[in-house]
Structures are given as C-alpha cells and as structure tokens.
C-alpha cells in the first residue's frame, strides 16, 4: 500500500460519517418493494420496470374486496375465465413455437435517468427452449421535465436513444420466459398449493400484493399451458384484496374484464393499483395497466406457429447447458448492436446465465 493510501485510510477512520450504533433494516427494504409493487417485474429482455403513460380512467364497480378475504365477485369471474382459458389452443408441439405479440410503455431506469419508450414486442418460444425476441422501440423520451432536469444534472452528456429494432436469437435450452427455473409440469393443480409454489419460485415478500404480481409474472409472455393458466386464475381468485373492476378498456380501447389489486402501501399518498385485463370470450390475458405511476401493456396476439419469422444470422447451435447457461454474442457493430445470438458455445470459458 502506498504512503498516500495508508494515510488516507488512517484519516478516514476519523471521518466516519455513520452515526454510532446505526444499523440497517432489511424489513424496511422489503416493505418498500411491497409499497411500490406497481414496479412489477418485467421479466424479459428490454430491462424495463416501472410504468408511465396514463391510460383509461377506471371506476371500481361491483363488490369491493373488503379487508379480510377474497372478493366473491372477482373469484366468480376468475373461475369462469379459468374454464374458458383451459380450452384455448395454446400448446405448441415439438418443432412449433408459441408466438406472443404485445405493446407496452414502461419506464426504463438507468442510473439517475428514467425514460419512456413504447415497445412493440414479438416473441417466438420454441418447445425446445429456442426462439426469438424481436423488440421495436420508439424514440426515448423523459417522463417529465423534472426527471429530465435531474438526469441531466447528474449525467450532462446523457443522450436519449433513437429507437429501433433488435432481434435476440436463442439456441435450444437458451430461452425461457418463465419467472424461475422450473418445469410447468411441476406446478400443482391445487390453487392453494400453487400460490405457495409461486412464492418459492418468484420470491418477494409473502404478501397478497406480491401474490397478485406473481400471477402476472407467470402469465405474461410465457408458454404456460392452458391448464396451468386455469389454475393460476383459480389461485388469483383466492388472493385477499383483489377487486373486480367489471368491464374496462385497455390502452388500445378494447373491452375486457378487469381484476385489480389496489394497495395503499405503508406510506401516505403512495398508493398504487395493478390491473390484469382478460378477454371475456377466450379468457386470455389481454392487457395490463396500473397507477402510481401509470403503465400499460396490451397483448395483441397469442398463437401457436410452425416457424420462426426468418433465418438467424448464424446457426443456433450448440444448445445451452441444462439449466440455461450459455454465452451471448452481439449482432452488428459493437457500439450499436442490433440484436444478439445466445448459444451454448464456449461454455467452458466464460459461461453466464443466458436468459434475458
């Protein structure tokens, strides 16, 4: 150690800014995640979390949930939707892909800067864990003048991204859109047990608000079989505090049945609401939206297809290791890649978990 370093270390002891006896509070950290559970986990590649962009005004109708148990009205609707979704043809066979198309507007948080961009997402999920995620994003914008000022004060050279399309290709076993490492077949068909399993897999505080987030995590852009989806709906019906919104309209103006989990949170004035919107004819998840701050997503199409939309720029081999470890290489110029390929190549040297 140099003389300067040694002197600095000695003097820093006397400069300790931490008050004597101060301790951390992990429970407070967990409480904040519950309070801000509207910052739901957006599990896929774009790395976006919270939400902005105001959407429809929703008026709570029918029976509010009350404090003690699940809402009978919401439970009845969810159980009816479960029967509908169980019969949907959404199970891909070997060689096929589940295709999910959506649009969303969530803020992207990078350091001190919070920006927005509408994202058009297309995902092809193969039964062998191969596939493609195609993201087309609009030019970024700041969520408010205050956020812009705060960002530029800390990062004077910050530049908003111009938007564009990226294609992320995955070799077999490299793509999983599930919120954890498990097989769909390992999930219980008992909704009470499934709620506990989701807590184990998805983590977070063991609260009803987090349970509602788990439901969304397991449904959105995943290849959950129809029977599992049906059990997820039945599990949602058991969550205390959920509310039936009746007919609502998603960001595209399409009507659907809304189920919400409103939360006042532990801090005054920081309540939030998360809504899942379901197609009343098919039972499928058709949209999401929420407040505090606001966000939206609409699911435009979900179906089984026979092919990827084109040829990847390189062979999608070898497969990733069991468990998903693989390596990701960018496509295109190093500074401005327009996608990536993830395979099991080079696993012995620099393997990393490959999933987005």
């Amino acid at each position, binding site marked *: 150690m140099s003389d300067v370093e040694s002197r600095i270390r000695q003097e820093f002891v006397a400069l300790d800014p931490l008050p004597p006896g101060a301790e951390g509070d992990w429970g407070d950290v967990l409480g904040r995640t519950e309070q*801000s559970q509207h910052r739901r986990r957006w599990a896929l590649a774009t790395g976006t979390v919270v939400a902005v962009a105001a959407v429809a005004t929703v008026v709570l109708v029918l029976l509010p949930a009350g404090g003690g148990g699940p809402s009978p009205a919401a439970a009845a609707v969810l159980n009816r939707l479960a029967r509908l979704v169980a019969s949907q043809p959404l199970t891909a066979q070997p060689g096929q892909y589940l295709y999910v198309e959506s649009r969303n507007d969530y803020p992207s948080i990078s350091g001190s800067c919070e920006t927005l961009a509408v994202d058009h997402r297309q995902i092809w999920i193969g039964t062998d864990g191969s596939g493609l995620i195609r993201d087309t994003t609009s030019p970024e914008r700041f969520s408010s003048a205050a956020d812009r000022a705060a960002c530029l004060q800390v990062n004077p050279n910050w530049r908003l991204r111009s938007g564009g399309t990226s294609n992320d290709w995955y070799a077999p076993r490299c793509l999983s859109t599930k919120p954890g490492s498990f097989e769909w077949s390992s999930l219980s068909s008992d909704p009470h047990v499934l709620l506990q399993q989701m807590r184990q897999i998805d983590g977070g505080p063991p609260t009803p608000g987090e349970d509602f987030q788990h439901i969304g995590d397991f449904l959105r852009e995943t290849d959950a079989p129809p029977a599992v989806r049906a059990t997820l709906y039945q599990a949602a019906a058991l969550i205390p505090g959920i509310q039936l919104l009746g007919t609502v309209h998603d960001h595209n103006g399409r009507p659907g049945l809304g189920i919400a989990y409103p939360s006042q949170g532990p801090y005054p004035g920081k309540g939030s609401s998360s809504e899942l919107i379901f197609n009343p004819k098919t039972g499928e998840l058709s949209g999401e939206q929420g407040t505090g701050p606001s966000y939206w997503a609409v699911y435009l199409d979900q179906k089984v297809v026979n092919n990827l939309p084109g040829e990847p720029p390189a062979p999608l081999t070898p497969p990733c290791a069991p468990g998903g470890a693989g390596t990701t290489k960018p496509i295109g110029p190093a500074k401005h890649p327009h996608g990536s390929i993830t395979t099991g190549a080079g696993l012995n040297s620099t393997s990393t978990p490959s999933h987005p």
Partner: protein
Amino acid sequence: VVRGSQRQLGELEALYRERWAAFARVAISIAGSVDVGREAVQEGFARAIEQRHQFRGDCPLEAWVWRIVVNTAKTARVRTPREDPEPGTAPEGVSLNGDRPTEVALWVRNLPERQRVAVFLRYWADLDYRAIADVLEVEVGTVSATLSAAHQGLRRSVQEVE
C-alpha cells in the same frame, strides 16, 4: 429470464446484512446527508430486488447493487435541497465530528465528482479497482488513473500545508 429469483433475493439480503455499513458510508458521503444517504441505501436495495430479473451476470452481483445505490444517492443529492457549507469549514461528503477539517477531508471535498466517488468506494467500501470499474462502468485503467490523480492531488495539498 434470469433464473433463480429466490436465490438472488437471498443473496441480496446477505449482501445487505454483511455490507450495510459500507453502503451507508458511501451513500451518506455522496449524498452529503446522513438521512438522505441512509434513505438511498434502502431505496437502492428495494430497486435491486425489483430489478433483479434484469441482472445479466456481466459483473458480480455486489458491483451491480453498488451501481444502483451510488446512482440512487447521486440522484437523491440532486433532488434534496441543502445548504452549502462554508468554504473550508465543512467538507462535503465527510463528517468532521466537530474537529477542524483535515487535509484529507479538504482534499476529498475539492475532488471532481468522479474522483470523489471512486475514493469513497475505495476507502469506505474497500473495493478493488476491478470492482470500482464495474460500479462506475469504466475500464480498470480509468479507475487506476482516477485514483492516481486523486492521490497526486492529496500529495500536493499536503506539501503545500507542510
């Protein structure tokens, strides 16, 4: 999707319990306020929990969390109204505990922000150059040059006093 969400939550809790004091010292120093700094640690870890699915494993988890906490503290400092200290009497980002400012305290106060944050990470958190580079998202050589420049500045200020 990053797998092992529950495992990551456990790792984050372990990191928090083991290294909270270091996170707090750095965040307080960056924010220039005990309350704001401690709040930044809490909020930073809450963000880490919520964003853990975005952790891609391209750096150690601890460095990724440091990055979030440092940026949260920087933002909190910008957004929190505060009174500027009298020049030369209350170095920003360090506590004087009622004593006259030392050369080191004055030196820290006068460093450019990037050098100051690197110094905090080096001496409050005891991070090595690789880890500091991961936190600041720069090359290791840049960290080396940054700290070297900071040390040179201290040598000069000490010589001036002596």
